[in-house]
């Protein structure tokens, strides 16, 4: 049996960490797009659409991410759609992310006062123009800290994808532990890597906060 050096462990974890980063990015971008769309239709205010979006948000906020992944991964094959762990993880995390971002952003949009809507309406702007020029720029500044904060949750949420066999950082950690019998070392390294991904995100959030305060008012 060959010996595993610490470098072997770290090197293999780093390879797997690429998938964690890629899955996080994909889920965050897709979730953000879906979330923005849901935010727009919700804010536009058709009562039935509002109810539907609220139900969507509550469904995904009120159930564990793990169950959502199981349902996507095991449920879709039942209706004849075979999905790979990658597709299932992406889809599950996108649904999860979009629900949370919609809710976070809704709060930010609502914090922009009624007077801003009325003033822009009085100037003849339609809904899209109001959103684009008046409401979203103001909501964006407020939204940055919680949004980047949530992106950290997405990164950590990708660990759940290990359960359906997607080889990312946590799954790789488990596999290496099974070969090395050194769980403390391996999971210690795994934790450090998650931290190295998440900590810069927090720093970035703080940087953006300062920047927006100075420039955009």
């Amino acid at each position, binding site marked *: 049996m060959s010996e595993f050096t610490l470098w072997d462990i770290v090197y293999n974890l780093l390879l797997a960490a690429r998938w964690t980063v890629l899955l996080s990015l994909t889920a965050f971008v897709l979730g953000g797009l879906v979330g923005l769309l849901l935010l727009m239709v919700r804010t536009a205010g058709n009562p039935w659409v509002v109810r539907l979006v609220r139900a969507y948000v509550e469904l995904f906020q009120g159930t564990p991410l793990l169950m959502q992944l199981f349902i996507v991964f095991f449920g879709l094959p039942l209706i004849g759609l075979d999905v790979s762990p990658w597709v299932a993880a992406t889809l599950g995390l996108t649904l999860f992310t979009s629900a949370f971002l919609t809710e976070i952003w809704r709060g930010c949009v609502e914090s922009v006062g009624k007077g801003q809507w*009325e*003033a822009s309406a*009085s*100037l*003849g702007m339609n809904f899209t123009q109001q959103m684009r*020029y008046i409401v979203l720029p103001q909501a964006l*500044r407020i939204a940055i800290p919680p949004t980047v904060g949530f992106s950290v949750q997405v990164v950590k949420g990708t660990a759940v994808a290990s359960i359906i066999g997607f080889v990312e950082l946590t799954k790789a950690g488990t596999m290496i532990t099974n070969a090395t019998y050194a769980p403390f070392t391996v999971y210690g390294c795994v934790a450090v890597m998650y931290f190295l991904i998440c900590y810069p995100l927090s720093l970035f959030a703080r940087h953006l906060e300062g920047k927006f305060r100075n420039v955009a*008012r």
Partner: protein
Amino acid sequence: MSLVELHAIHKSFGALEVLKGIDLAIDEGQVIALIGKSGSGKSTLLRTINGLEVIDDGVIMVDGKKISERDTDLLALRLQVGMVFQQFNLFPHYTALENVMLSPQVVKKQSKAEARAIAEEMLTKVGLADKMMHYPDQLSGGQQQRVAIARALAMKPKVLLCDEVTSALDPELVNEVLAVVRQLAEEGMTLVMVTHEMRFAREVCDKLVFMHQGRIHETGDPEEVFSNPKTPELSSFVGGLA
């Protein structure tokens, strides 16, 4: 034909009927003051004229054209009817100049140069040529309100609605805003204002509309109405202010 005509306007908030059948005609160049106690419906009436409050019943005609609740009608209406608010409602993330330029560019699709020229003209008119690059939070209340007036004027409305435009201002800042409104009135702008500045209303307005409990209770020439109120309600309202 009047520029704006309101016929039998009814409006309720839930069970509370705020406007109980309002008829009002606003002629071009006329300056009208809406006065009355708070809760009399004067602000709500003003807000129905540009569709910020949707009426339950009645007809609004602007320039001879009936306004329906369709979005396109509302947008067309708002191109003709500008509004200035008690709380200014400037866009805090834009400079004074950008606040005024935005709508001509975005709504009227004017070029940046055109919009800028109009914005500079309007800001100069309200006496803020030297404050164009300032953000709202760098301006006093009176200056903010003047930017708001310039912003409404840049859209070249036919009517300007003013909703208690000096009520949120410190007393020493009231006059600079009233001076701008007076200047507009003298230039022939059609103005409808809800105001508590009775002396100003008396001096500047052509017509006074006294609202009481959701109805137009008394209306007429300001001098006449103030010196010789016909109803006890107006009499006590005017008396209570003196």
